[in-house]
């Protein structure tokens, strides 16, 4: 039973990690419909930036994350301008390949700057808390709480603010959007900037429980794509459900089946869900 | 009767988009369907052609029950349609569009194509001939190499008809074929429809342009809020107070007067 509870919390924190990493992608892929394969690379750059501010520039942890988010937002915007904006009328496959090009570029660039070494980042959030007889680190608790808070704030932002709605409008009809006075370019940039900032926060929080290295984003990215599809594209509640489902499924499969099962479970769940509901768990009413 | 529709219904959530509609389409005639916006006309077409599954009711075509058959089977059985927002293969040329219609019905397989069997060559030739004939017939031959997305509205509408005809249907359902085209053109479109009937294709027509309806239709089905409120000859329908109230409005006389611009129709065999 303690094993179960322990794994439950492990799954929960893993789910939190997934959710945090998924948020930006939900915006960019789910809402703007750009399958940004470089999202994982942005996550990685976010981790390096946090690391840089923390160690080389010596600023405090929270500030380091904030600065990294700021810089990464700039990078995200640059990426939108240089890579995706020229492709706005091209099919999504082209976005994918261009994003892959951007991903290669970022991997190489980071390796050129920081080398291929593994790095470890210390978080000031230390110690563990005992919940139901199991030990959970504060860092993990922080991740889960941040994930939930950010997701709620974002849902609110998208649904309730004019800005949020403009993102949806641009996704659905660029011409229509510009005809009501929305600047589609600005919205795209805003979305990319926001997505990048969020993924930097995710990376900054997650980095201390893992390592920093140039390909660290690859693993998480595939899972994150799975999550937002599992939940239903563009659905933020879907991303929450998807993220925590996969986190828990992985923890449980690892415990009660095998480690290999833990690694594949995400994809098996995805396939099962889509086989039954081809448009994901929580989908909007109308398909285009 | 070429087609019999009985008690057809469709609900979306709580909304009865089409409710218990029955009517017939007689062979060789033009059956028009009119009604206010949102009356369920397009939905009715979607039900007949298998794009939606009816919640109740039946559709019989050539004495065979086709209720709920998927769209492609309905099309193969001989029911073609156009869409309200004109749908074409936008990035292909007009000729390629019509060729696609021919290809849809062709029997040849990849094996035929790979080995260039006589059947394949025969079909290729036939498709080409048919395409040119249909473009000529619909009067858009000169646009054959234009990309569909770039030709004027009215050419698109005609191309959509040619594409539908390429599948060699017995029944052609047209959803607002004359929307957005000039009066002048509308009249010529009326002629085209008449020629289609003359080819032996039965036509079902949804349209808001009463000039067209009144001059062409052999019988008219009137829908309002999903229900049938009238079904009969143009004369019957025109004078039906419920139709006037729900659809035509008091100014309806004005629109029918435009009938003059259109040739006298050939009398149908009666509804």
């Amino acid at each position, binding site marked *: 039973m303690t*094993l179960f509870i*322990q*794994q439950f919390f*492990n*799954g929960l*924190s*893993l789910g939190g*990690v*997934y959710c945090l990493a998924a948020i930006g992608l939900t915006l960019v892929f789910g809402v703007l419909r750009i399958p940004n394969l470089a999202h994982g690379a942005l996550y990685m750059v976010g981790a390096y930036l946090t690391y840089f501010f923390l160690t080389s520039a010596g600023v405090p942890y929270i500030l380091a994350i904030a600065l990294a988010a700021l810089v990464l937002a700039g990078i995200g915007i640059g990426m939108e301008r240089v890579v995706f904006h020229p492709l706005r009328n091209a099919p999504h496959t082209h976005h994918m390949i261009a994003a892959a090009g951007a991903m290669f570029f970022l*991997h*190489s660039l980071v*390796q050129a700057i920081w*080398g*291929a*070494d*593994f790095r*470890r980042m210390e978080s000031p959030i230390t110690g*563990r808390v005992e919940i139901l007889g199991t*030990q959970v*680190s504060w860092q993990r608790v922080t991740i889960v709480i941040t994930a939930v808070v950010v997701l709620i704030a974002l849902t609110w932002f998208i649904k309730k603010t004019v800005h949020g709605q403009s993102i949806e409008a641009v996704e659905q009809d660029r011409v229509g959007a510009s005809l009501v006075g929305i600047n589609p370019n600005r919205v795209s940039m805003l979305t990319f900037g926001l997505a990048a900032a969020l993924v930097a926060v995710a990376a900054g929080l*997650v980095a201390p*429980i*893992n*390592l920093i*290295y*140039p*390909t660290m984003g*690859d*693993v*998480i990215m595939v*899972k994150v794509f799975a999550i937002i599809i599992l939940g239903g594209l563009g659905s933020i509640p879907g991303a929450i459900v998807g993220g925590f489902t996969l986190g828990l499924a*992985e*923890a449980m499969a*690892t*415990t009660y089946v*095998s*480690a*290999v099962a*833990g*690694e594949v479970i995400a994809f098996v769940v995805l396939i099962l869900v889509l086989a039954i509901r081809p448009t994901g768990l929580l989908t909007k009413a109308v398909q285009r | 009767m070429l087609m019999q529709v009985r008690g057809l219904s469709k609900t979306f959530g709580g909304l009865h988009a089409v409710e218990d509609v029955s009517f017939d389409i007689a062979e060789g005639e033009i059956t028009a369907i009119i009604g206010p916006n949102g009356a369920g006309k397009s939905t009715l077409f979607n039900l007949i052609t298998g794009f939606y599954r009816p919640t109740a009711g039946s559709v019989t075509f050539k004495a065979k029950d086709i209720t709920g058959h998927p769209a492609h089977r309905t099309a193969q059985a001989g029911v073609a349609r156009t869409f309200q927002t004109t749908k074409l293969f936008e990035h292909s040329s007009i000729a390629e569009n019509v060729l696609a219609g021919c290809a849809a019905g062709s029997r040849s397989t990849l094996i035929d194509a790979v080995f260039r069997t006589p059947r394949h060559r025969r079909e290729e030739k036939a498709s080409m001939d048919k395409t040119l004939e249909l473009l000529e017939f619909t009067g858009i031959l000169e646009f054959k190499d234009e990309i569909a997305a770039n030709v004027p509205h009215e050419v698109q509408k005609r191309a959509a008809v040619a594409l539908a005809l390429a599948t060699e249907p017995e029944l052609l359902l047209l959803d607002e074929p004359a929307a957005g085209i000039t009066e002048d053109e509308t009249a010529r479109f009326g002629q085209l429809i008449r020629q289609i009937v003359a080819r032996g294709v039965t036509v079902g027509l949804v349209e808001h342009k009463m000039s067209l309806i009144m001059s062409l239709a052999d019988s008219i089905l009137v829908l309002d809020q999903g229900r049938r409120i009238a079904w009969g000859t143009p004369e019957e329908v025109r004078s039906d107070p419920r139709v006037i109230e729900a659809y035509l409005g008091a100014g309806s006389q004005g629109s029918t007067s435009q009938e003059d611009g259109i040739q006298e129709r050939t009398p149908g065999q009666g509804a």
Partner: protein
Amino acid sequence: GDGEGGTITIGVTGPQSGGGALYGENVEAGIRLAIDELNEQGVTIDGEEYTVEMRALDDEYQPNAAATNAQRLVEQDDASVVFVPHAGGIHAAQEINTSRSEFLIGAYSSDRQIVERDNELTFMIPPTFASYSEPFIELFQDQGAERLGLLATASEYGQQWTTMMTQDWEGAGGEVLSNNNFDYGAVSDFASAVASALSEEPDVILVGGPSQTTALVIEEARDQGYEGGFMIMDQAKFEEMELFTDPENLNNSAGPKPVAEFDDPGTDELVERFAEEITEERPLTAETSLNFQAVALVVKAMEVAGTHEDPTAIREALPEAATEVDDVFRVSGFPDVVTDEGLLISDTLEGAHRDSEGNYEYFPVEIE
């Protein structure tokens, strides 16, 4: 020497980008350091002076890319020796090195299959990992350990280690618990796998993958309250792990001996040069030191054979060359013998045990 006579190209194909980039960098560092030293000393073959050069291509750890690169190095750069630091690449290169092209493979992988293929143009640089099995088991069983947990990385090499250890541990009368191996590089959070392994209450756990991730796995286990021992596969290095986790977490573990602890004549100098010329951010490890030795060995073999172009002759000269290599190149268990199979045997190889106080003890390991 100036090497007016020409150049000898040592080919390398390894991961320079992607997940294996660091590993590839370390290998290349060893080769580069050796080459610099060799050029300093001068290389004379058949009376002519040569400059040695390294030409390295990126294969992203992919077997077929490695083979293509090797062929390219041989054809375009006239390399007669190509170093390949991963089992897959070595196997793929072995498909062509005696037929479509001719070149000697400097195989840096501890997978024994490499020398079992009767490929006449291969020599295997590191000790086979099978060498560690017996001493590790003895060490922990002497301490009373019975239950072995499995928590290694799920790469080829990890799986083979695990299979070997499972057999040997059971052979020695111990109990092997369920296999919780997972891919260290593909899992975002180790906590679950560690928790599963711990739930069976092992006395000792087999871990191992890249040092850094291994350190994290060990740390996670300690955090979850595990107090038993660790057997650490030879890929992970104590000297690196110490930088990634509180060294106390590593207490009560056995693994390969840190390079810096070897008493070979060249060790100290190489440690110093590594820090100076490569990086101070990470310690010198076996990836670097073993390849360093191997380059010296193979160039010496060229001198002995009197040719730098004939791979067969070079291969045949290896055993003799092993005895003649300069002391600076002897750093971490320099081979005394090169077997016909292509194994490099050193009788000074040792393993390390970090006891519960955090002190290291070394024990002999016999290469098999």
